[in-house]
């Protein structure tokens, strides 16, 4: 059976898809692909959102921010540009996901 991936949102170097079958999100970023369950994706998004770029840029090591995601045992070494792109990706992606939730609430679940 062919597994279809739904496109959620893209930026220049990043994209997020979801697989309805497995309920897994697929993050493609700078040529790399990482898989997340919903709660892991929310955790990752919160970690990215909480990075204060003003503080980062005024620190002694402004180039790189390290984010650990235990679920895939990965360390993400993110440049300022990476962080900006991921913040942008998650802002767009979660707006789309929330819009999808509104559609389900107003149209699909009401019919059920």
């Amino acid at each position, binding site marked *: 059976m062919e597994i279809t991936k739904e496109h959620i949102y893209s930026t220049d170097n990043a994209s997020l898809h979801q697989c309805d079958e497995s309920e897994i999100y697929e993050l493609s970023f700078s040529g790399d692909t990482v898989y997340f369950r919903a*709660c892991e994706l*929310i955790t990752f998004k919160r970690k990215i959102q909480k990075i204060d770029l003003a503080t980062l840029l005024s620190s002694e090591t402004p180039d790189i921010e390290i984010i650990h995601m235990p679920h895939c045992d990965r360390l993400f070494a993110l440049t300022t540009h990476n962080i900006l792109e991921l913040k942008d990706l998650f802002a767009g992606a979660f707006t789309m*996901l929330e819009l999808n939730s509104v559609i389900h609430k107003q149209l699909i679940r009401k019919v059920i």
Partner: protein
Amino acid sequence: MKDILRRHSVLQDEVVDIINKQIKMEAQSSAAYLAMAAWCDKAGYDNCAEHFFKQSDQEREHQMKFFHYLVDMECDAVSPSVGDSQHEFDKLRSVFEKQLEMEIAVTDSIHDMVRVVRKVGDIATEEFLRWFVTEQIEEEYVARRCLELFDVLGEDKVGLGMVEERILDIEYDAGE
């Protein structure tokens, strides 16, 4: 497209943040009450020490209620770091003054949480917080009654002895 987000995520980020903040506040209160219990015990006020040990346990229970709520909702619950507590007091009354100040701060914080969940329309969390609103009425009542004992009985040796005798009898009857 399947609504995976709604199936696995119940609380909004803002609500998760304020609950984690409250978990830290309850943990800090629990630690502060332990320090107060230690001061009372050292000064020979055994019943007052027991009162604060109980208060410390209660704050820990509140912390765990919030913690379990986040975990049950598949949200990130953060085990908090706790800062230093005040270990020195000039007299017994000061310890109870501190208790009332802490309880008022917790009440204000819970009420602020209710305002936030109302603003974002999180009816389930508002219902969950109802227990804490009621609990804080009791906590503030007990803290005020403790201080009133000092007003009524005085702060000489006999008065403090009577405070020590009566401190464990204070209970809130919810207007009954």
